């Protein structure tokens, strides 16, 4: 076994710089001659912009330029794009209303960018921004997911009659109707998947810099996918051709989806840097982030299950609406449709499923992918419905799950909603989770809690997600506008060190460590001699970035494949040097060996030979530097069983999570320490959604009420327990490394586990997230 290879909980290579203040985040970057931009945003949810007067601002001290949307249009800069074209009912593709970088005629949400003020200092830009005079006519607004498509609702875009961007359906309606007609019992739940603000701790930021001597533009930006940023700004926004445009995503302080997208402010920094021939910097305030970052979730749904007399699921019907906000972001409608609908089978054999999803426009910030992206919504809906079904049937929630699980020997399993699962043992995960959580001992603990005046409940969540996004042909056929392969370059330096370039991006996931372990395992090079480089379009080959738990299942395989190319070439060089046939060369633990002999050549020696090819095989190129692209054959399907146990104080509604057990199937773990950390973080995100977090707009005014950490409740250390985490792995058929992805699991699994525990404690059918103390208190009072 290779030291520090796959399976080692190696301490992270990146930690020392973060722990000593030597990280390099976008806001840490300052360029000579830098200016600062501040964005004037709409204070209204919906308003006509009658006129804008920037004369006073332009004349204010330190002001370099004041720009509006027309200035970008005059420079042929295109608007922000929606990258999804999803085909809905009647073959109709989603509407994609245009969006200027700075809106001109109309503001459609609180925070909609209108004017960019650029000055020598940020304080001067802010001071001048107050002098911008905008004459608005306020319009009625609509923020409601459920009602924005109603007759008479204020209309956002001419292109979207009734504010509907897409009417989408999935599945066999007739089969589902037949299942309900034949059902012994049915269950129904109406639920809200609460809107979340992603809130990576690093606010978004960008610095644009232009070199008028070379004509090169550089954008430093908080991005999960710098190549995609460059592609969008080049191909669709016409800011700069790709070959003259460098995008750098340096250390990025968390993303969780919100830093996938190309944003207005980033485009302004890039464009204005060239226009002014001076660096332009923008850093978001947190309150700006609340207004202008893409939000997540925000569905309202009705879900129904038809069951036979044994509680077997016969059919499932979902009627749902999702809030897209005021404009369609990059993935937008693909999230509530493809990434949501395709997971609705969950871990169950439900033979017929039908989903109707209406994507509506509202006077709110755009909504797009956020940690889990569609899969948390699907899992929450399904795992709540399963518990309601158990309640209807009088079955234990664990028992109804077991009766409906897809069994391990049924793999691969084709669901009725497109996905074909390639591995999984859901009984095994559940059994292990119930054992670890002492499910059997719960009633005694509940009775003991009752003696202390506390209501105790236990809840399950058997989740599955589709990760490793994604097979390009599959997503292309569904309307996603890009390929979702990944690339890697593995370069031996002449002195034996290895530099790995990956098209994925690390913003907390520890790629610099885990990917190095992968190379160490594959090539036998000491892990300290492997350096992983990412986040710079000038350094690495093209890549699609990091989201959808894809970095290891897709990007990792690309690295492994590049390593295999290195080995294949190395065999030719070693065979020549060792005077053996290439077929007789074996590779292991970093050594090329002539089979059955003691003739050996270390890979570092081979690398040196490749760069100093004095005695070299004919027809072989010098150098040892290989690129591989990998397009996955299928999604990966992480799954698991989580158990949450809570206690509620009925007098105040205060809730404590007294036990949380997570059993996950991620396949092979490359660095178990990092994986466990990803689980913890996902759980905090999911528990935050279940208990604390809710983005609230005022129904009448459209104002963002939860616009800062004073009103948007982020999970703190004292809101959370320590977690019990273990694994129940199965090996996927399709992934060459046997890995599945782990970054989103907790956020997907936790919300229904927590809410199922709460409804169990209160003996009620349902309670919407976030389960605030007041909601719990009211439910406890009503329950007596």
């Amino acid at each position, binding site marked *: 076994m290779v030291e520090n290879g796959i399976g080692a909980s190696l301490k992270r290579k990146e*930690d020392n710089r973060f722990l000593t203040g030597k990280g390099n985040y976008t806001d840490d970057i300052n360029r000579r001659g830098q200016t600062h931009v501040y964005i004037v945003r709409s204070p209204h949810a919906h308003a006509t912009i009658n006129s804008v007067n920037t004369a006073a601002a332009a004349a204010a001290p330190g002001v370099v330029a004041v720009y509006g949307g027309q200035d970008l249009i005059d420079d042929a800069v295109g608007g922000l794009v929606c990258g999804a074209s999803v085909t809905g009912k009647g073959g109709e593709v989603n509407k994609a209303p245009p969006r200027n970088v700075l809106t001109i005629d109309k503001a459609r949400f609180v925070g909609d960018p209108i004017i960019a003020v650029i000055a020598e200092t940020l304080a001067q830009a802010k001071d001048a921004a107050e002098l911008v005079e905008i004459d608005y006519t306020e319009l009625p607004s609509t923020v409601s997911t459920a009602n924005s498509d109603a007759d008479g609702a204020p209309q956002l875009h001419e292109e979207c009659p009734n504010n509907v961007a897409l009417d989408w359906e999935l599945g066999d309606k007739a089969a589902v109707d037949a299942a309900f007609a034949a059902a012994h019992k049915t269950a129904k739940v109406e639920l809200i998947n609460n809107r979340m603000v992603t809130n990576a701790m690093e606010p978004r930021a960008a610095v644009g810099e232009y070199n008028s001597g070379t004509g090169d533009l550089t954008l430093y930006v908080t991005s999960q996918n710098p190549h995609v940023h460059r592609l969008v700004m080049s191909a669709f926004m016409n800011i700069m051709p790709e070959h003259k445009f460098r995008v750098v995503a340096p250390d990025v*302080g968390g993303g969780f989806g919100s830093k996938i997208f190309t944003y207005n402010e980033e485009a302004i920094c890039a464009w204005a840097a060239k226009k002014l021939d001076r660096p332009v910097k923008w850093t978001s305030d947190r309150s700006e982030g609340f207004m202008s970052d893409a939000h997540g979730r925000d569905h309202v749904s009705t879900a129904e299950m038809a069951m036979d007399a044994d509680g077997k699921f016969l059919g499932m019907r979902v009627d749902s609406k999702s809030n897209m906000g005021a404009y369609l972001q990059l993935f937008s409608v693909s999230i509530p449709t493809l990434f949501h609908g395709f997971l609705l089978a969950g871990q169950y054999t439900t033979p017929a499923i039908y989903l109707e999803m209406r994507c509506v426009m509202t006077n709110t910030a755009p909504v797009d992918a956020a940690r889990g992206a569609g899969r948390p919504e699907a899992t929450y809906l399904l795992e709540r419905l399963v518990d309601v079904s158990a309640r209807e049937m009088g079955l234990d929630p664990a028992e109804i799950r077991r009766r409906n699980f897809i069994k391990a020997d049924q793999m691969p399993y084709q669901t009725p909603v497109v996905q074909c699962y390639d591995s999984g043992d859901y009984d095994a995960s559940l059994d292990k989770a119930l054992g670890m959580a002492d499910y059997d001992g719960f009633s005694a603990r509940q009775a003991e809690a009752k003696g202390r005046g506390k209501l105790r409940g236990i809840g399950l969540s058997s989740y599955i997600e589709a990760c490793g996004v994604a097979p390009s042909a599959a997503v292309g056929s569904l309307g996603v506008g890009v390929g979702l392969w990944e690339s890697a370059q593995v370069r031996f330096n002449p002195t034996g060190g290895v530099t790995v370039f990956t098209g994925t991006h690390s913003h907390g996931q520890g790629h610099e460590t885990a990917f190095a372990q992968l190379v160490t395992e594959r090539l036998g090079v000491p892990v300290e001699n492997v350096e992983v480089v990412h986040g710079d379009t000038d350094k690495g080959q093209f890549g699609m970035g990091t989201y959808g738990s894809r970095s290891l299942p897709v990007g990792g395989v690309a690295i492994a494949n590049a390593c295999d190319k290195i080995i294949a070439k190395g065999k030719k060089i070693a065979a020549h040097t060792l005077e053996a046939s290439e077929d007789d060369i074996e590779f292991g633990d970093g050594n090329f060996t002539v089979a059955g002999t003691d003739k050996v050549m270390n890979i570092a020696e081979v690398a040196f030979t490749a760069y100093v090819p004095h005695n070299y095989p004919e027809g072989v190129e010098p150098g040892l530097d290989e690129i591989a692209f990998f397009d996955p054959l299928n999604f990966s399907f992480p799954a698991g069983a989580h158990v949450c146990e809570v206690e509620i104080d009925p007098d105040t509604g205060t809730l404590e999570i007294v036990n949380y057990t997570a059993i996950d199937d991620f396949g092979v773990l490359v660095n178990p320490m990092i994986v466990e950390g990803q689980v*913890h973080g996902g759980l905090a995100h999911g528990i935050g959604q279940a208990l604390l977090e809710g983005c609230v707009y005022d129904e009448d005014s459209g104002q963002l009420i939860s616009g800062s950490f004073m009103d948007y409740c982020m999970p*703190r250390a004292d809101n959370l327990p320590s977690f019990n985490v273990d694994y129940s792995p199965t090996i996927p058929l399709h992934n060459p490394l046997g890995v599945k992805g782990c970054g989103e699991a907790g956020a997907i699994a936790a919300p229904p586990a927590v809410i199922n525990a709460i409804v169990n404690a209160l003996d009620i059918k349902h309670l919407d997230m976030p389960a605030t103390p007041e909601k719990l208190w009211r439910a406890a009072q009503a329950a007596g």
Partner: protein
Amino acid sequence: MATVSMTVNGQAVSGDVEGRTLLVQFLRENLNLTGTHVGCDTSQCGACVVHVNGDSMKSCTMLALEAEGADVTTIEGLAKGGELHPMQQAFKDNHGLQCGFCTPGMVMSAIDLVAKNPNPDEATIREQLEGNICRCTGYHNIVKAVQQAAQGG
């Protein structure tokens, strides 16, 4: 503009600032000590925590001029001679950081926490870290790190 002087990480420093210049701006912009971060504008996230005269404080909620004559320690001032401070080491050992953005403030708060609570239990650690928000770790490993540092120190 006024001149402010203080000791930062053991070195006497001074600079010209406005009345409204925050301590964190002075550290980041005047001294280029960019390890201290700004994660919110309502004094809640704690990414900006530094030590002022030995106590942890939010440098985003303090004027630079208020620190006149003060002894300030930032994340850059902890490691000595290439050796991580025991709290930094504990965060590394326990995977108490992911993206690293909240980490400097979290470490500075944790050091103050242990200084004032030499044997903190889990509940105390969690309560005392309420002024520091982390979106990545779920706090589990941060709590473990603080426990390790407290036991080792």
